[in-house]
C-alpha cells in the first residue's frame, strides 16, 4: 500500500504551498493520476481521505484527473491507447511501446482561502 506514503507526500506538498500563500484552509486539491502510474485510484482516494486529517486540507475536496495511457510503437511509429506498459502495438504487433502519456502522478493545483 504505497498509496499512503504517496498521499502523505501529496499533503506535504499541498500544505507547503498553502502556507507559502498564507492560506488558512485548503478547499480543494486537484491531482493527476495516470493509468500507468503504478497506483490504484481507489486506494489513492482512500489514502487521501486519511492523509488530510489534522492538516490545513482536512476538509478539502479531492478532485482526481484520470489520465489515459497512450503509447507510440518504437517499431512502426504509430500511436495507440495503452492499458498496460506491455501491450503490443495493435498495428504491427511489436511489444515495444514508448509510453507517451499515463505515467502522471502530480499535484496539479489547490484552491485555498
Amino acid at each position, binding site marked *: *500500500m*504505497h498509496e*499512503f*506514503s*504517496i*498521499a*502523505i*507526500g*501529496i499533503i*506535504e*506538498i*499541498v500544505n507547503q*504551498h*498553502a502556507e507559502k*500563500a498564507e*492560506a488558512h484552509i485548503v*478547499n*480543494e486539491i486537484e*491531482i493527476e493520476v495516470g493509468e500507468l502510474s*503504478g*497506483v490504484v485510484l481507489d486506494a489513492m482516494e*482512500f*489514502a487521501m*481521505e*486519511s*492523509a488530510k*486529517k*489534522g492538516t490545513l486540507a482536512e*476538509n*478539502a*475536496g479531492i*478532485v482526481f484527473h484520470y489520465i489515459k495511457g497512450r503509447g507510440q510503437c518504437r517499431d512502426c511509429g504509430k500511436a495507440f491507447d495503452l492499458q*498496460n*506498459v*506491455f501491450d*503490443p502495438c495493435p498495428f504491427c504487433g511489436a*511489444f*515495444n511501446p514508448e509510453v507517451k502519456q499515463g505515467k502522471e*502522478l*502530480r*499535484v*496539479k*493545483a*489547490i*484552491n*485555498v*482561502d
Partner: protein
Amino acid sequence: MCGTCGCGQNDQPIRILKPGEENHPHSYIHAHDHSHDGKIHAHNHDHKYAHNHGFDDADHQHEHLHEHQHDSDSHDHSHSQNHDHDCGCNNEHSHDGHHHNETAGHKHGRQISIEEDALHRNDLTAQRNRGYFEAKNLFVVNLVSSPGSGKTSLLEKTIAAVKGKTEIYVIEGDQQTMNDANRIKAAGAPVVQINTGNGCHLDADMVHKATKKLEMTDKSVLIIENVGNLVCPSLFDLGESKRVVVISVTEGDDKPLKYPTMFQTSDICIINKTDLLPYVDFDVAKAREYALRVNPNLMFFELSVKTGQGMEAWIDWLLVGF
C-alpha cells in the same frame, strides 16, 4: 498518522541499526505524557507487557461560526462538526455544513497552480544519493523481489565471491528483525539494517541515513536489499546505479506480466533456483519473453545460488559495473 494504513495511530518508527546496536533491556520502564483534548495524564510503560493505546477521551465536539465577504453580497453561516473517534482508525465523520468547492457555478478562494510530481521529494533525495555515490565511485545495486526468492542467500554467496576483489557493503531493508543483517555480517560485509516498521518499501531518505552509518570507502560496491515486495518499491528511486529484480523458478513464470512496473523499471533480471527446474513447471523461455514484453532492454542471469551454477556471470557483471 500511520504512513502505511492511514490510521490515527503513530507509525511504527523506522529504525536504522548496525548489528549489535539493537540490544537494549526490554524490561525498562519509562514514563511519558499523553494529551487528549487538553487532559494530560502521565503513565508508565513496562515493555514486558504488550499493550494497546486507546483514545478514550478523544470523543469531542466543536462548533464554530464564521463569516464570508463576497464582492456583491455578504452572508453569515455556521456549521457544526461532530467527530466521533474510537481509536482514530476507522473514524466516521459527520459533517454538517457545506464544502466550499461544491458551490454550484463558481468557486470561492484562490486557485494556486502547483504542477509538482507526488514523488518529487523522493526523486530529489535519490538524485542527491546518486551524486554522492558517483563522487565516491560506488556501484550501487537496488535488489528487489518477492519475499523468499533468495535475495539474502544471493548476497551471502556474492560477498564470498567478491572477497579480495572489491569492498562490498550492504543495506538491508525489512519490516522487522535484524536477522538478515546478522547473516550478512556473518558473511563478512559491513551492513546496516533498516527496519521500516509497517512500511512496504525503502525510500531515498532511509537510504541516505543508512549510507551515513556505513562510512564506505571509495570504489566499492553497495547492495541495497529492498523490502520483499514486487509492487511498492518499484516507484521509489533510491539513487542506485542499477536495479536488479530477482525471481525464482518456484514462482509463476508470468510474474513479469503480473507486476510489470517492477520489471519495467529494472535493468537486470536474475532467475534464481534453476537447480529446481526439473521439479517445477516454470518455463524460463516464457518468463524471459514476458519480461522482455514489459522491458525490451532487460538483461538476464540464470543461476542457482544453492549449487553456484551461473553465479560467475553475475559476479563478473557486478565487478565490471564497479
